[in-house]
């Protein structure tokens, strides 16, 4: 029997599912604590976060926690893997689009500014000594990797603490660990993360995974209106604007949710230029075109059009 707990955090649906119901309370508590720790380290929306302190450091070396060091290292690895298409220096770009507060609080009547990202090489991270220096004026956003890292870390920790098989979903960034249920963990992939216990809102497909992570990036979610335009949170670092969408939704599976999310995000940003990276990465991927055609690669099971 699978036991589940659902709640909302970071304006996302959060779910913990465990194969041993006795592990549910521990799992929920562990994930809740980790979400709070990551928020305190990396939130753009609170003045007391370590990320906000970097904004005030004005280019000086700054001591940071081991947790924030790890989050930055993961973000920099994502940038290296994607040649800067998934870049943690898009903080100012997102603010230029109005995303400087929770998405449901963004005002539609503000101005729209395209601010290209300075690039991940403006960050110097000293992992060994837990300190970082960011070029003056550079604003960070770890949204592309922090959720997925939290899902990976929590799933592993819950299984280590309880011995139970575990699934953690944070806004559709999914990590599983430990023994999977019979038949595997069933994941419904769709444009927007929904309630898995309810009927799908739009086109969808269900796959099973037994280990690692699965993530989906979509231009259909976390959208807002600004200066008469609809924009969303997936930013092309080179322009500071949402990319022209070749794919409306991309899902990927990998050994970790971080890797899955990095590739799915890069695919949305690169559009039709993603194929060389897909070949190089070799991960199972599902791509949905703007008109709903579904392409799969890397061993993702074939399916009908969404």
């Amino acid at each position: 029997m699978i036991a589940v707990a659902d709640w909302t955090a970071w304006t996302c649906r959060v779910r913990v599912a465990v194969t041993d119901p006795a592990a549910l309370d521990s799992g929920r508590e562990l994930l809740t604590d980790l979400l709070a720790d990551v928020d305190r380290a990396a939130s753009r929306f609170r003045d007391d976060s370590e990320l906000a302190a970097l904004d005030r450091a004005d280019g000086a070396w700054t001591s940071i926690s081991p947790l924030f060091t790890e989050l930055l290292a993961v973000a920099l690895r994502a940038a290296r893997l994607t040649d800067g298409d998934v870049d943690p220096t898009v903080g100012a770009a997102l603010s230029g689009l109005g995303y400087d507060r929770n998405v449901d609080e963004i005002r539609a009547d503000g101005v729209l500014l395209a601010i290209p990202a300075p690039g991940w090489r403006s960050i110097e991270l000293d992992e060994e000594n837990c300190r970082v220096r960011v070029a003056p004026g550079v604003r960070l956003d770890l949204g592309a990797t922090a959720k997925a890292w939290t899902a990976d870390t929590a799933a592993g920790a819950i299984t280590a603490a309880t011995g139970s098989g575990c699934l953690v979903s944070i806004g559709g960034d999914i990590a599983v660990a430990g023994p999977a249920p019979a038949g595997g963990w069933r994941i419904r992939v769709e444009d927007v993360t929904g309630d898995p216990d309810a009927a799908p809102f739009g086109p969808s497909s269900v796959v099973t995974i037994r280990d690692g992570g699965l993530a989906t990036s979509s231009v259909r979610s976390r959208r807002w209106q600004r200066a008469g335009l609809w924009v969303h949170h997936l930013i092309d670092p080179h322009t500071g604007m949402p990319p022209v969408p070749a794919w409306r939704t991309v899902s990927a599976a990998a050994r970790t949710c971080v890797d899955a999310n990095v590739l799915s995000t890069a695919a949305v940003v690169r559009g039709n230029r993603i194929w060389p990276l897909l070949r190089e990465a070799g991960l199972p991927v599902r791509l949905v075109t703007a008109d709903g055609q579904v392409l799969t690669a890397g061993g993702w099971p074939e399916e009908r059009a969404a």
Partner: protein
Amino acid sequence: MPTDPFEARRTGAHRLRVVTASIGAAAVVGTGALAWSVAAPTASASTGATTGDDEVSDDSTTTSDDGQFVAPSQLPQTSSSGSPHASSGGS
């Protein structure tokens, strides 16, 4: 025009030395260029770990997985029955 066979031999030997030297120089330059082209992306990929304001250390914490995506041990499979345990979409 009359040809002095000794002069022709000296000229030929000189030309051979010039060609040999050129090939040698090209090899040195080519090797250097190759080494640079290999080293440049390696250096740019090993970011980050610094020990001083202007000093870049070599003892980064890079792992074997650091430079590449890692696939799951089992591929996703189509699910034929049962309600989903989770939804994955944009958020």
